[in-house]
């Protein structure tokens, strides 16, 4: 597994998509000056901008890397030479996944450091109303990375069964979009107002989806970081466990499906 992981990492670093996306990351440097244009809540704004930029970059990375990594191997016939080596299909899938996950963690770390420097610069020029909670900013970035690692798991699962990159790429994006609103839909379905508009069948279908699809919204701690409000520890821990279990299930399913796949 370690060998596949290292090869995957090397592949990412030498990939053009990666180099393009990383050029985007250079934008973080300009955040303090951009935020200062607003004249009000400059620090809050630069926290928002930094965290959103990081989140967006990680979304791009997780979709492209997660969805194309295995597909590319199959499409370019690398699988014949790799899967026939004395590594199990499970190690192959896990190696790919952890290679990408590790890369996301590294990205989060590097971008996180850059962002914190940007925020520091902003806060020195325009002191915020409430002191910046660095711990919360870090937590927000960590949980964001975690969310995208889970998304990579989704992409791996779709790649394990798909023959084209269409399903993994668009499937992952759709699940991401649905995953971010599923909590709102759930909450809405539990309001009395919804009873009149939504039929029982639709409601039950939506509930099934709610439990089946990943709930990504709870990973979003940005608001807490921006306004320096402490989130509830229990909630954060629950999210952490939820993410871990969900990702593990995705990985197991991917390796099971990929293990039975014919390399024709």
């Amino acid at each position, binding site marked *: 597994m370690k*060998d596949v992981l*290292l*090869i995957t990492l*090397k*592949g990412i670093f*030498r*990939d053009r998509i990666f180099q393009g996306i990383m050029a985007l990351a250079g934008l973080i440097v300009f955040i303090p000056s951009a935020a200062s244009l607003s004249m009000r809540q400059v620090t809050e704004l630069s926290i928002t901008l930094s965290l959103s930029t990081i989140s967006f970059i990680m979304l791009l990375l997780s979709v492209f890397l997660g969805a194309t990594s295995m597909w590319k191997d199959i499409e*370019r*016939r*690398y*699988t*014949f*030479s*790799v*899967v*026939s*080596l*004395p*590594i*199990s299909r499970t190690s192959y899938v896990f190696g790919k996944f952890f290679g990408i996950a590790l890369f996301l963690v590294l990205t989060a770390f590097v971008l996180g450091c850059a962002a914190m420097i940007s925020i520091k610069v902003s806060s020195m020029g325009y002191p915020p109303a409430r002191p910046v909670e660095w711990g919360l900013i870090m937590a927000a970035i960590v949980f964001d990375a975690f969310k995208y690692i889970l998304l990579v798991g989704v992409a791996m699962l779709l790649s394990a069964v798909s023959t084209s990159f269409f399903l993994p790429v668009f499937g992952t994006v759709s699940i991401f979009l649905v995953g971010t609103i599923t909590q709102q839909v759930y909450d809405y379905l539990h309001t009395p107002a919804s009873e009149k508009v939504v039929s029982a069948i639709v409601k039950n279908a939506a509930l099934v989806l709610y439990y089946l699809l990943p709930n990504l919204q709870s990973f979003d701690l940005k608001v807490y970081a921006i306004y320096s409000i402490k989130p509830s520890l229990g909630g954060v821990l629950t999210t952490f466990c939820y993410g871990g279990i969900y990702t593990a299930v995705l990985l197991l399913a991917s390796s099971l499906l990929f293990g*039975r796949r*014919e*390399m*024709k």
Partner: protein
Amino acid sequence: MSNGVALDIQGLSKQFKGKRGLRVEALCGLTMQVPQGEVFGFLGPNGAGKSTTIKCLMGLIAPTAGSATIIGETIGSVESRMKVGFLPENPAFYDYLSAEEYLQFVGRTFRMPDDLLARRVEESLRLLELSDARKRPIRSYSKGMVQRVGLAQTMIHDPELYILDEPMSGLDPIGRALVKDIILDLKKRGKTVFFSTHITDDVEKVCDRVGVIVKGRLMALDRVETIMRSGIEGYVVQTKAGIGNHTALASFGLIRSSEVFREYSVPAGRFNEFTALVSHHALEITLIETKRKDLEAFFLEIVENVAR
């Protein structure tokens, strides 16, 4: 245990399910063994099922029926692949890596210690004449160079069994000769080589035994030597003109004659009679050529029989 059998295939079959329930019977009940130390040629026309067999052996696809073991290990397991150097058909390798990096990756998956691996990488790059390109990404390699990387990566861990799917394809004559030399050298070192091809000449030069597969069925399996010998139809013999009594040979067909020599066609069954007459009548033989049906003819005959 393997009991000296490198490859044991029992009733291996594979059906591909196509669209609209269409089934392709790519391989039907293949049963054969390859003993350790043998060079085995797996000969068959396009679409015969050679690659299908090999993919089953390497666990890339699951056979619909039957089983096989590689040096005693059931196919599809990591342990079975541990003992094999495998070259896929028209191989492709991570093209962002250089040959050197790729070979290191392969060696590590075989859990080779670092110092041994470094030495072997060096050796196999040199053997396949890739030393100059070793640092360049595989992306920049020519087709033949990629094939050479493919061969290098089969040898890196010095396996007991080599399974090569068309090892000579894409190579120039120098490369083909090199591969033949490598195979003969592996044989000398007691290794087993199982390779597929549709070129009879390759088989003739290096193989101990050959199996002919057509439309998923094994149609013939024999020692190359036996086939070659059974294919002998007769001899073309030249005798020196002007020495001895040539009228004694009148019952043999005279192909041509000149002032220097006379050339006779001698059927395989009458060769002894011919030589007896030669010595009895003080004639002198200057040249003997074997006239035989070669492996190619043997192969074509089988393929045509199946087609009929």
